[in-house]
């Protein structure tokens, strides 16, 4: 239902969005496939879920985070602005970047608002009958550990190829010479 290059394209789009939207002050962002199966253990307390819907598929992005001092400090949580709100805003930006990249291939797209769930709920992704499920461990900055799950449910064949963003930018620079 979902071609290999489409799965790869979605993952690369997520990597690019995560590296530009989940980090602040140009800090590092390391993304590795989650150990074990595609459903990591619920080691975090919260997860922000967003959905991008198109005519032929829906894509769920779940970003898990811990409500600890390191995470609160990195995302600028304060007493007036709880970590949940701050992280939902960041997650919304990340998913928005994915939506922007996908809309080049799928003109009819819509994106939901973020919603906060317990991270244990992410283990139930299989209940959605996904055609593609991938989980990643994301480390931003020095020690902020996040989890990301991509879940795609398709109702029609999905096949597209997204050009690598870095290659596009590099190509743009070359054209200037």
């Amino acid at each position, binding site marked *: 239902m979902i071609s290999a290059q489409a799965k790869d394209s979605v993952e690369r789009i997520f990597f690019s969005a995560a590296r530009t939207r989940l980090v602040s002050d140009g800090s590092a962002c390391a993304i590795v496939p989650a150990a074990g199966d595609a459903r990591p253990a619920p080691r975090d307390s919260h997860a922000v879920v967003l959905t991008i819907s198109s005519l032929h598929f*829906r894509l*769920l992005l779940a970003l898990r985070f811990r409500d600890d001092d390191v995470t609160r400090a990195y995302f600028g949580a304060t007493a007036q602005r709880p970590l949940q709100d701050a992280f939902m805003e960041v997650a919304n930006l990340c998913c928005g970047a994915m939506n922007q990249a996908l809309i080049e291939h799928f003109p009819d797209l819509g994106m*939901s608002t973020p919603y906060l769930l317990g991270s244990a709920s992410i283990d139930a992704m299989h209940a959605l009958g996904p055609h593609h499920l991938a989980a990643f461990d994301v480390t931003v900055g020095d020690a902020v550990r996040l989890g990301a799950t991509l879940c795609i449910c398709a109702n029609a064949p999905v096949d597209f190829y997204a050009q690598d963003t870095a290659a596009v930018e590099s190509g743009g620079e070359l054209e200037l010479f």
Partner: protein
Amino acid sequence: MQTGWAIAAVLAGGLLACLGAALAYRARGARLVAQAANEMAALREALAQAEAQASGAQAVHASDAQAWMQKEAEFADALARQSAEADARRDALRAVETEQAALLALAERIEQEAGRLRALSGTFERWHEQMISLTTQNQDMRTKNHELSSIVAHVSIVSLNASIEAARAGAAGRGFSIVASEVRTLAARSQQLSNSYRDSLNRNDLVTAATFQDIQAGGKMITAALGTVEMLTGQLSGQLRERLQGARA
């Protein structure tokens, strides 16, 4: 005698003179007749030429008149043809105007419908609010389940203590030990049920959120598509309106 001869000579001379004069007069008359005849012939020739010229001019006029009549007829035909064509074009223009007016009305109707359907976003938001209501209920059930789980854990501890106390009582506590064991078994089953219920709530949270987010995102997709339809039909109706106004001007 001589006088007679003289008279006779004079008479003869007079006679001769008269004869000469008569001859001269006659000759002059003949010349005049001939001159008159010549003049008459010249006049006849001139008349004939004038008649010929008049006849030629008449023929030319007749030809010109025929040509003009033919041209007039052609002009009349051309005028009638052009008039008919103008009528046909006017009818066609009216038909096109009518068609454009109908298309304009249709485009405006589509534009209005698209604008009206964009209000569906309110419906999608209502569904989203219902999702929040459902997940709030889920959260309430999760809290109750957590409370139940705590109670079950407490019952399990109590049953364990009861088993210990029953063991201390020895033979007298054997029956109580069996009851405590049964309660512990029920507590363990209750705990399993509570865990399963917790997993169901977790799954329900995700499915509910995913479903309503799909509705919300799909609603935005539909709203955006309707916005595009509204914009395009707006452009179409604008162009049709301009053309219609141009045609009527």
